[in-house]
């Protein structure tokens, strides 16, 4: 299905852009008129994916992160992409409480948070090349409202 609207932005890998990215994604997704709770789910998941690119992908060094959002009548598809370090073992990385940086007080819950707040999370990664995280969510509030009409 063709999206009804799309956006794509690229920004520097900086921790101050974590808030920027989640506010932008929420503003864009707001066009669909989801509930505040659904919007918070999206914001939190985007924050996790972008933070991972900053901390793990680029290890707090320079780089660029690209975020795309595709809107469908009652759903959204968001991609967060870095050209950083990549992940050796994606299955391991996705385990709750697994972190490669415990000394930096990371808890290893980022992927679990994304999986809880979104419907589906896909991770594509290659060591030395980078990581792409795809987040999918259907807004039940909109889907159910459309059904009633």
């Amino acid at each position: 299905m063709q999206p009804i609207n799309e956006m794509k932005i690229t920004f520097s890998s900086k921790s101050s852009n974590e808030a920027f990215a989640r506010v932008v994604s929420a503003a864009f997704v707001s066009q669909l008129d989801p509930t505040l709770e659904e919007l918070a789910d999206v914001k939190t998941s985007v924050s996790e994916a972008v933070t991972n690119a900053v901390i793990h992908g680029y290890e707090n060094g320079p780089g660029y992160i690209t975020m795309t959002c595709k809107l469908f009548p009652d759903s959204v598809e968001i991609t967060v992409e870095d050209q950083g370090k990549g992940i050796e073992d994606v299955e391991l990385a996705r385990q709750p409480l697994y972190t490669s940086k415990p000394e930096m007080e990371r808890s290893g819950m980022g992927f679990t948070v994304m999986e809880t707040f979104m419907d589906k999370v896909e991770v594509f990664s290659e060591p030395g090349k980078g990581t792409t995280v795809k987040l999918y969510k259907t807004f039940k509030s909109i889907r159910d409202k459309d059904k009633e009409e």
Partner: protein
Amino acid sequence: MQVKFTRKGATLIVKIIGELDHHSADYLRQKVDGELIKPSTRNVIFDFSSVSFMDSSGIGVIMGRLKTIQKLNGKIAIVNTRPQIKRIFEMSGLLKIVPACESIESAIGMM
């Protein structure tokens, strides 16, 4: 983010105002650790009533302070977390070791 401290005996009350993410976590960590080295502090209560957003970075901050406080034989509690944030703490298993209280008064009662 803003951080405000008040004290009740040996208990430090940390009111966090704003968004708690990786970017602001560093600031919060620095501020709180600056208070924790004062010998008068034994327990810490984190007041989340004015936290408008939190991601998994918040778990790391609380876990890290818990380690310090446990060495001092003190206690930690979190209060006034909104449902979305409470869910994140719950997922991580943190609420099995750190109580989430309804009010600062009830948290002080547990210290």
